[in-house]
Structure formats: C-alpha cells, structure tokens
C-alpha cells in the first residue's frame, strides 16, 4: 500500500514540464488542473460534512422530543399544510433536477442551456421560499411561533380550529398541549435554518447567472458550478427529511 501513490502522482510530475500550457484559471500552487478540481470538490464534500453534523444536532433534538411528547407532536404537525409541504417538496426536487441539468450543460459547454437551467433553479428556489412565507404567515397569525405570544388554543380546543378539526384531533391535556411549543421550536429552527441555506444558495445562483452569461463556466472550468450543485442538492436532501419528519408524522390519526 505505501508505494502505490507514487504512481498515482506520476501525472503530477510530468505536468510540471508543461508549465507554459496552464489554463488561466489554474491557480499557481497547483501542479495540474485535475489536482485543483479534485481538491476543490473534496473541500466542498468536507464542507457538506459539517452541514450534516450541523443539522444532525437538530435531528437529534427532534428525535428525543418526538418520542417524549408524541401526542403533542402529532397534533402540532396537523397544523402544517400537507398540500403546501408536498408542493414545496416537488418544487425543490424539480430545482435539484434543473441544477443537475445545469451542471451537465456546463460540462458539455452549452452556455445558453446553463443560463436557462440556473435561472430555472433560482426561480424554483424563490417559489419554494414564497410558499414557505405563506406557511410562516399562517403560523404567525395563529400564534404558533414559540415565545411569549405562543397560543395553545388549537390544541386545547381543536373543535374551533379548522386544521385540527379536519384532522379529527382530540383536545390535549394542558400539560401535553404545552409541549407543542417544542414542536414548533424545532419546526422553525429546522425549516428556518434550511431556508437560510436556500437564501444563501439563491444569492450565489444570481451571481452565477451573471457570470454564466459571460461564458465563465462553459470554457472547461466547471468546478464552481459543480460545487454549487453539491450544495444545492444537499439542501434538497435535508428538505426530503424535514418533509417526512415534520409534515408526515401521522396524518392517519
């Protein structure tokens, strides 16, 4: 095992002779373009690892409280709108698809295709945030935002709450009803953190569209688009779990 990588790096040494032919985007401390592309892709993956662990803390908290306060979590989850949630899942999956297509366009040097794909991705991202805003607004109106103004009304008296009535919720005991606040804390922390990632992503997308129109990514240097693609798919991936855990706990009850 120890000596095999000497062969792997063979490419690196020979490339040293071809110094004059470096493409302009190769940074001076790399020996070859491949080394540069590999290094930045690997760095992106490591960054995503930190994201996994960042959301991991939230998922751990969710698991614990869901098991402790199951009835509260069920009733509280009924306050979310499955239609909006499903729609947003579809929107995000579509945006992931357009992003993947964007990467393909960059790799195959299709400038207009790339601009189109990135624009679509950004639009879908904005649609997602729009729907999220509608959902948040509903929560604010019903005083389901944790904190001083949190209201237990929907859970103590489900007969007068549309969403709870539709789900056929029974009134919760006061003690259990109070734990719905934990659900909404986690709901806002998780979806809020996710939305923050979306907003950052959309900002970067706007920058990329601007650059892509000038042909920045269709000249063979696709690392940036690829790395952003990893990020965007990861955000999609987090949502896939959030959707299952927050919206679909138990619609049947």
């Amino acid at each position, binding site marked *: 095992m120890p000596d095999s990588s000497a062969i792997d790096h063979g490419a690196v040494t020979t490339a040293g002779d071809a110094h004059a032919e470096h493409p302009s985007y190769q940074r001076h401390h790399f020996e070859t373009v491949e080394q540069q592309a590999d290094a930045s892709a690997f760095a992106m993956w490591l960054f995503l690892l930190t994201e996994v662990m960042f959301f991991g803390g939230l998922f*751990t908290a969710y698991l614990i409280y869901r098991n402790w306060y199951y009835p509260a979590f069920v009733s509280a989850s009924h306050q979310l709108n499955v239609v909006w949630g499903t729609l947003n899942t579809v929107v995000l*999956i579509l945006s992931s*698809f357009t992003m993947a297509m964007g990467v393909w366009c960059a790799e195959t040097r299709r400038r207009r295709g790339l601009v189109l794909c990135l624009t679509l991705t950004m639009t879908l991202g904005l649609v997602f945030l729009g729907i999220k805003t509608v959902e948040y607004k509903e929560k604010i109106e019903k005083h389901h935002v944790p904190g001083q103004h949190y209201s237990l009304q929907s859970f103590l008296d489900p007969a007068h709450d549309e969403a709870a009535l539709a789900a056929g919720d029974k009134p919760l005991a006061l003690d259990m009803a109070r734990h719905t606040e934990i659900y909404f804390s986690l709901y806002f922390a998780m979806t809020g953190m996710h939305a923050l990632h979306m907003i950052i992503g959309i900002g970067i997308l706007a920058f990329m569209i601007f650059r892509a129109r000038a042909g920045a990514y269709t000249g063979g240097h696709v690392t940036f688009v690829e790395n952003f693609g990893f990020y965007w798919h990861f955000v999609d991936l987090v949502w896939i*779990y959030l959707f*299952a*855990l927050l919206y679909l706990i138990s619609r049947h009850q």
Partner: protein
Amino acid sequence: MSEETKHTHQIVGPKVYVIILFALLIGTALTVWASFIELGPWNPVIALAIATGKAVLVVLFFMQVKYSSKLTKLTVGAGIFTLLALISMTLSDYISRAWGRW
C-alpha cells in the same frame, strides 16, 4: 493509497437525471400516500425508509457519488457514521433513563 489524482470525472447525461427526477416524484407521492394509512409503528419507519431512498438517489446520481472516487464515497460514509454516532450515543442516554417511556 487508492486515491486517484487523475480526474475520474464522468459526465452524467440528462437521461439519468430525468429517470431520477421521476423516481423522486414517485417517492414523494408514495410517502404522502403512506402517511395517510394506519400502519401503527410502521408509519414512521416507512416515511424514513422512503426519505432515505430518495436521499440515496440524490446523493448517488444528482451528486454523482456513484461515479466519484473512493475518497468521496469514504467522505460520505464518514459523515453518516459520525451522524449516527451523535444520534445513537445521545439516545443511549435518553432511552435508558426511563425504560419503557420510549
């Protein structure tokens, strides 16, 4: 070491992406449908199983891990391993604090 410095990059075509897109959409429909059916303790299991299935598709194809170097695969594995360490070791406390409340 088995790390490749040469670029093992493989371009994945639109055909694969379209197939994955439909698989993901079907998975979404499936998981929503399943959540409305009474399956007792199996509801969350199925929801998580479908979510994981979708996540695997995203990671393998959209994120191209299927076509990537061993190092990338190892990185993904390390992430899952540490995430499971965090969850399982924390839960080991909570589960055993009061047996049966879980």
